[in-house]
């Protein structure tokens, strides 16, 4: 592999990893704070992408579509938490798995009902459609760099919110001791609703920004969900920092595997995960 190809693959890997982080952070946040394993998390990625497509069709503005999709996702998260997830806090993981499998079925059916099963695509927004030359010969699309930067900004904001604000303090407190937070007079169920809605929104936003660089197809949610599982398991369930490191690792491993060992490329991240789990059964940064 020459150095140009190496650099391109490195950027691709980082960009993919950062996108994975955006989705996995919501999954791990919801698990860390609420103890809920949300298998329907990937479905929200799909919903985000389809919403982006729909609103771009209607309005022609990508920025507007992104905002409205995020708001809708937040609303879905709010409703789902209030009606369904709320019942599950005291139940075991098995019930959570089942309920969220049911939700996957419903989301997939609604997607078929509303938008059909043909692959769709969203154009890259005009302002970001340029390419920049990389090492003389290869052009690299600006939009992909925008995606990477956007994810880094989101990661920064999340870090700030969790470590510096009052909401972040509550989230950290809720992670370590639910009863104690309740005893201090804080409405934990409201906190849970907020965390769940934000987690779901992160996944949908990832779907929106991924829409122009991937094809929008049924089943995209399940595919990304499983990859995020790998990320979260490598990083340690519930750890945002772990999700960040894990996402970058998975992004790089996946991208380089498809160049170096194409015949094993889709298996490579699972082999990598099994290897990590053998060394650290609880993941790299388990709390």
């Amino acid at each position, binding site marked *: 592999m020459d150095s140009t190809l190496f650099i391109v693959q490195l950027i691709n890997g980082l960009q993919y990893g950062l996108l994975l982080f955006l989705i996995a952070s919501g999954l791990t946040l919801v*698990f860390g704070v609420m103890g809920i394993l949300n298998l329907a998390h990937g479905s929200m990625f799909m919903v985000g992408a389809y919403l982006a497509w729909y609103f771009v069709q209607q309005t022609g503005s990508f920025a507007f579509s992104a905002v409205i999709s995020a708001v809708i996702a937040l609303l879905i998260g709010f409703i789902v938490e209030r009606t*369904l997830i709320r019942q599950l806090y005291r139940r075991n993981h098995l019930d959570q*798995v089942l309920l969220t499998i049911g939700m996957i079925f*419903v989301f997939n059916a609604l997607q078929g009902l509303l938008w059909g099963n043909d692959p769709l695509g969203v154009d890259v927004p005009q302002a970001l459609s340029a390419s920049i030359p990389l090492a003389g010969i290869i052009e690299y699309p600006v939009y992909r760099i925008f995606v990477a930067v956007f994810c880094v900004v989101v990661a920064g904001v999340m870090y700030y919110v969790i470590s510096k604000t009052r909401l972040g303090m509550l989230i950290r407190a809720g992670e370590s001791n639910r009863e104690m937070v309740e005893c201090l007079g804080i409405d934990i169920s409201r906190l849970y609703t907020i965390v769940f809605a934000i987690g779901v929104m992160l996944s949908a936003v990832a779907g929106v920004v991924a829409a122009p660089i991937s094809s929008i197809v049924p089943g995209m949610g399940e595919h990304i969900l499983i990859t995020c599982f790998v990320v*979260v398991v490598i990083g340690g369930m519930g750890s945002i920092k772990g999700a960040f490191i894990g996402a970058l690792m998975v992004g790089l491993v996946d991208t380089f595997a498809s160049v170096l060992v194409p015949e094993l490329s889709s298996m490579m991240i*699972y082999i990598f995960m099994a290897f990590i789990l053998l060394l650290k059964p609880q993941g790299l940064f388990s709390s």
Partner: protein
Amino acid sequence: MLLNKRAERLFVWIFFPLALLMPMFLEQNEYYVNKLTTIMILSIFVMSLDYLVGKCGLITLGHAMFYGLGGYIFVMIAPEYEAVNFWIYTFYICAISATVAFVIGFLVLRTNGIYMIMITLAFAQMTFYYFSDSIDFGGTDGVFVYVKPETSIFGLSLFDLDNPTHFYYLCLLSLFNTLLFFKVLIRSRFGRLVDAIHANPGRTVALGYNIFIYRLVSYVVASALGAYAGYLFTLQYGFVNPSMLSWTTSGTALVMSILGGMGSIYGAILGTLVYEGLHYSLEHLTEHWLLFMGGLIILMVMVFKKGIAGFLEDLLEKRDGK
């Protein structure tokens, strides 16, 4: 008494005689015989999962791996254009998949709870992608089985696998044996210990038992039976493809086992029957059957927690209480 619940006895006494007579009513309709055969095969698969999840408390989301492996091992080791002996290959497939399960179980059982759910899923995905990408095994199209095995024992051939009715009886027999096997296993000393480990692992360790060995044996046994079910499925339809290994297969099996009543073993048959029945009828009513299926699963988790078996048991107990 092997069947210690009224609901269980009632079910077994109604289900098996009915199933035995069923092909006589359906003689003209091969489609339904095939459908019922598939339900029997799935029931074996779901039952082995039910034992693992409901009895041992080992939640796995990768059981489909063995279902698919059952089929793939067969096409790997059997000659393409020659009829092999069914019973000998049953033994081979169970032995090979048990070996695989032993190695994987050794790794997987080091973790527990949520981590176990995910690492079992990861192993299943690994095999899924391996077979989807492999040129030798036909990629996503899978492999065809051109010649079905013959079933002679000591020169006596009981079943002709090309005949749907014969195949139906073979699967029914297998299902009955699987039920019997698990019931005996659960009543044995081994089964009592599995119960104890599920109820309180810490105390069982304190009593001086090596719980890892019991879990590993359970995992190996359930996986081998899962592979057997996959082998039967491959023989019925004459092909094996990666969708058998997909995580939705594992997920659906979990749903069936919960629907039937987790840990009740015979509930696996109930759950599979009801799920497949609903699937079949909804699919014919509307193309958006998935919406209703999803809604049903959500409803089930919310209100119908103990599954059909639990519901039946409560119903019969209540009548006794009067």
